[in-house]
C-alpha cells in the first residue's frame, strides 16, 4: 500500500484555518528542537512549554479543519501528509532556531503579532475560531512576555549578547512584512467577521516591538524589501527539512496507527 500526499479541498475557510494551524505547528516544532539543548534548564522547560502550547493550538485548528473539510480526515492527515507547497505558514516561523537570540527574537516578532490577533479573533462570528482564539490568547500573552524579557536581557546584557540580538533582529526583519499580507481567499472571511484583518494590527504590533527594542537598547531595522510567499506555499528551503523529520514515520509506514 502506498499513500502519497493528500490533496486538500480549496475553500477559503479551510485554507485560512490550515494556514493558522501551520504557523502554530511549525513554530512549535522549531521550539521543541531546543528540548535538551537550551542554555539553562529553566529555558529547556520554558521553550518546551511554549512548544506544547503551539502544538496544542495546531491540533485544535487541524481538528476544526477536518470538520470544515468533512472528508473524514483527522489532525494528523494535515500535519503529516501534506507536502511543503501545501503548507501555508509564514516564512518567519520556519526560520531555523539559530542561536538563542534568533529563537527569542523570532518569538518576539511573532508573539507581538499573534497575541493581539487572537484577542481580535475572540469576537469572530465563527464560534469555534472564537473559542480557539480565547484559549490561544492566554498562551500567546505569556510567550510575548517571555520573549520580551529575554530580548531586553540579551540586548542590554553584554556586548556579545547585544550584538547577537541585533543580528537576529536584522536577519528576521525582512520576514515581518508577511505578517500583514491578506491572501485573496481571506478577504471574504474578513468582511464576514470570521477572520481578522491583520492590517489593523500593524500599528499595535510595531508599537510593541519598538517598545521592547528600545528597552533592549537595540535598533529597529529599516523597512526594506520584505520576503513573502509562505501563505501561498512558496517557502524557504528550511521547511522541507523540517517536514522530512516531522513526517518521517507516517511516510515510511503508510497507513499505520501509532
Amino acid at each position: 500500500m502506498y499513500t502519497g500526499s493528500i490533496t486538500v479541498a480549496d475553500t477559503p475557510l479551510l485554507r485560512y484555518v490550515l494556514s493558522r494551524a501551520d504557523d502554530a505547528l511549525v513554530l512549535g516544532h522549531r521550539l521543541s528542537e531546543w528540548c535538551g539543548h537550551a542554555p539553562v534548564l529553566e529555558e529547556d522547560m520554558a521553550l518546551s512549554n511554549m512548544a506544547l502550547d503551539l502544538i496544542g493550538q495546531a491540533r485544535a485548528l487541524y481538528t476544526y479543519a477536518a470538520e470544515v473539510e468533512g472528508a473524514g480526515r483527522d489532525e494528523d492527515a494535515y500535519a503529516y501528509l501534506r507536502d511543503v507547497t501545501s503548507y501555508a505558514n509564514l516564512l518567519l516561523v520556519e526560520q531555523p532556531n539559530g542561536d538563542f537570540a534568533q529563537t527569542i527574537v523570532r518569538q518576539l516578532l511573532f508573539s507581538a503579532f499573534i497575541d493581539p490577533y487572537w484577542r481580535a479573533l475572540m469576537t469572530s462570528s465563527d464560534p469555534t475560531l472564537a473559542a480557539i482564539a480565547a484559549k490561544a490568547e492566554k498562551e500567546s500573552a505569556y510567550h510575548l512576555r517571555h520573549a520580551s524579557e529575554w530580548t531586553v536581557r540579551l540586548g542590554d546584557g553584554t556586548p556579545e549578547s547585544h550584538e547577537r540580538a541585533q543580528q537576529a533582529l536584522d536577519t528576521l526583519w525582512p520576514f515581518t512584512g508577511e505578517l500583514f499580507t491578506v491572501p485573496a481567499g481571506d478577504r471574504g472571511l474578513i468582511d464576514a467577521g470570521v477572520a481578522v484583518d491583520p492590517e489593523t494590527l500593524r500599528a499595535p504590533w510595531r508599537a510593541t516591538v519598538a517598545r521592547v527594542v528600545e528597552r533592549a537598547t537595540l535598533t529597529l531595522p529599516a523597512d526594506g524589501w520584505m520576503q513573502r510567499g509562505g501563505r501561498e506555499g512558496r517557502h524557504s528551503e528550511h521547511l522541507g527539512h523540517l517536514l522530512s523529520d516531522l513526517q518521517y514515520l507516517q511516510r515510511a509506514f503508510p497507513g499505520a496507527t501509532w
Partner: protein
Amino acid sequence: MYAQSLNQQVEGTTAPEDAEAAARFQARVDAEERIEPNDWMPAAYRRTLVRQISQHAHSEIVGMLPEGNWITRAPSLRRKAALIAKVQDECGHGMYLYAAAETLGVTREQLVDELLAGKAKYSSIFNYPTLTWADIGAIGWLVDGAAIMNQIPLCRCSFGPYSRAMIRVCKEESFHQRQGYEIMLTLARGTAAQKVMAQDALNRWWWPCLMMFGPPDAQSQHSDASTRWKIKRFSNDALRQKFVDATVPQAHFLGLTLPDPALRFNEATSHWEFGEIDWTEFKQVLAGNGPCNRDRMAARRAAHTSGDWVREAAQAYAAKERARSAAAAGAA
C-alpha cells in the same frame, strides 16, 4: 529516572564526630523521622546524599537526550505533545533534585561542572541509542518501570527533601511508564513491521534495564551505611527480581518474547528466574565505552558552552538592573 547502580560507596568516615549527636541522629533515623537540611547529620551521610542526589539529577538531564532524539520525529501530534511533556518532566525532576542537593550546601553550578568535567556519573542506561520509535515505548515501559522500582522506596528515604522530591517524581514516572506501555501495546497490535519494531526494541533494552539495578549483591561494594541510614532499603538483587516479576507478564500480554532463553517461572518460589547478566558490558558502559557515552557528554557540553553567552548576559543585565534601582533609590 534513576539507577540503583549509582548508589554510593560511602567514603571513610575518618573525621571524629560528636558521638552523642551521632547517636541522636541514628535514633531519629531508626524512628523513621525525616532529617531536614538544618539538622545535624554525619559528614558521610551528607556526602553520600550529595553524590546520590546529584547523580540522580544528572541522570534526569542526560536522560532527556535519548528521548528528545524522537521529539521532532514523533509519529502523531498526540505522541509528539506527550513526548515533549515527558522530556520536560525529566528536566523538572533534574531541577528539583539539584535543588534538593543544594540544601546540603553545594550549588547546581558545581554539580553541573562535575558532570561536564566527566567526574560525576549518571545512569548507564542513557548511553544506549534510541534507534526507532519503539525505543520511546520501551524506555517508558522498561527504563521508567525499573526507575520506579528504585524510587518508590526512596519516597521513605530518611532525608526529607529527597524523599519529598521522590514522591512527586514517582507520580510522574508511573504516568510515563503507562504511557510507554501504551506505545508498546499500539505497536504490538499494529502492522507486522510495527510488531518487529517493538520486539527489536525489547531485545535491545531488556538486559541494560536489568543492569540498572546495579551489580549482584554478592559483588556489591556498598557499605551497609546507606541501609543503616535508611537511604537504601532494598538490595540490588531484590529490586531486580521485583522488576522481572512485574515485567515478564506485561511482555507476555504484549505478545512479545523476552530475549532470555533461560527465563522460567519457578512455581516453588513464585519468581521468574532469569539468565546470566553480562556484567562485562555493564562495566564497559560505566567506563565510558557504551555506544553513546561520548555523544551524550558532547551534547551536554555543547548545550552548556553555547549557552555561556546567554547566562553571562542574564547576569550582566541583572547587575545593571540592581545598579539602576540602587541609583534610583539614592536619587529619591
